[in-house]
């Protein structure tokens, strides 16, 4: 991901020792989101062109350097342009993840006012999974998962997963900003990851088994969440009742 920098900032970055430069280039993701202008695109033109044509080759060649170099050739760049992507095939996986996450809001619009947040989350997850199918990567996704689970790639993959989870909750209209902000995103990240893995082995028509898998996971999380919530509420009521009882007996608390 690149950050848009002024020429002065770029000059300062280039003057620093090479090992330190990444600290100076900061990505403005996951910060204050403004509605008054559009975020700069995450990939520059050349990168975007190469990666998008490489993605078209993924169904046949998989997430490999071959697909990347075919993509480079097709978009009119030389083979050596794949040096733009130091992480090789993982950069291609990441491009797919980023573009699908950003494109999620354009793929689905909610018109029914009465649809609850839970149902919207379900629709958004299914839509994101459908996007994998439309891009034709489901057959090669196990390779992608293997790449994502390499030690050097795990932090970025987890960041992408948590960004996707945040995006889905935001698009579903979730307005909570207490501890449940974290628990909701964590559970949805887990559910989404499990469902995506399941989808790679799903042979049913129109991925109906995946849909049912997702429904079962969402139901489990709903039950677990409400169990915890109700227990905490009960504990709270018991505590409050005890305090009020003592106050009614004249204890000064």
């Amino acid at each position, binding site marked *: 991901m690149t*950050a848009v920098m002024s020429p002065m900032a770029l000059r300062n970055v280039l003057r*620093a*020792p090479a*090992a*330190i430069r*990444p*600290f*100076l280039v*900061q*990505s*403005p*993701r*996951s*910060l*204050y*989101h*403004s*509605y*008054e*202008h559009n*975020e*700069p695109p995450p990939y520059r033109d050349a990168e975007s062109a190469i990666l998008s044509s490489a993605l078209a080759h993924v169904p046949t060649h998989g997430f490999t350097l071959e697909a990347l170099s075919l993509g480079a050739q097709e978009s009119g760049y030389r083979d050596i342009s794949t040096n733009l992507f130091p992480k090789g095939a993982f950069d291609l996986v990441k491009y797919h993840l980023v573009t699908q996450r950003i494109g999620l809001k354009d793929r689905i619009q909610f018109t029914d006012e009465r649809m609850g947040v839970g149902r919207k989350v379900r629709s958004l997850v299914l839509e994101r999974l459908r996007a994998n199918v439309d891009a034709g990567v489901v057959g090669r996704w196990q390779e992608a998962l293997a790449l994502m689970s390499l030690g*050097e790639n795990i*932090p*970025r993959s987890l*960041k992408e997963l948590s960004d996707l989870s*945040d995006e889905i909750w*935001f698009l579903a209209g*979730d*307005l*909570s*900003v*207490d*501890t449940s*902000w*974290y628990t909701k995103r964590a559970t949805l990240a887990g559910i989404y990851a499990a469902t995506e893995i399941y989808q790679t082995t799903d042979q049913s028509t129109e991925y109906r088994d995946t849909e049912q898998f997702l429904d079962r996971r969402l139901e489990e999380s709903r039950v677990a969440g409400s169990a915890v919530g109700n227990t905490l509420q009960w504990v709270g009521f018991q505590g409050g009742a005890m305090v009020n009882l003592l*106050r009614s007996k004249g204890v*000064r*608390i």
Partner: protein
Amino acid sequence: MAPLLPIRARLSPLAFQLRARNVRTIISSSASPATEPEPESLDKPQSTRRKPLSIEQKKFLDKALRVNQAGELAATLIYTSQTPPITKAHPHLRPLMKHMYDQEAGHFKYFNSILARHRIRPTVLYPVWSVAATVLGWGTGVMGREAAMACTEAVETEIGEHYNGQVRELLAWVKEIEGKGEVLGEELQDLVKQIRRIRDEELEHLDHAVENDAKEANPYELLTGLIRVGCRGAIWVTEKV
């Protein structure tokens, strides 16, 4: 988020210095609100801003609004837990406590909506601050009216300085934007106005507390000193986490 580098690079002195330089503490200011600048563009209707905020500005807003939400959470819980013991012993204070609580609840609601709208994460220590604020409110409430008012005075002094600092920082941005001839934008305009209003209401609570014999509290210096240090520590931790 800095990408992962080899350990030697991450642990080199220059890396530490750069990381330290990038961390920006929230400014607090004890200068009187009357000395704040009054830029014109705060009152003019604004069209949509086209130039994006810089990364430092976004980081500042991210941290500042997170801390503000945590602060208002603590304030509402302090009043909630202070009110029963205080109003039992001094029923005439009920309207005052209710008024202050209602204003804090309004602030909390405002910051909640801002965090949800601008996709800012709340503090991880939300349950910790909830418990701490409840304990503080209950403790000072049980100690008596003067102690409760001293607690309010201490908290509101810290919060007032905190909001002062934020308002001054935002007004400095407004001045810079006006100086460059750019559009301020409705978001920033609204934010400055709202934080100013909230700061004014907090200082009003401070005045109410002092009027109600906050200074008569028995271990006054100890109580207010401890609470102020605690608030500053809480603000510092919430900025980071």
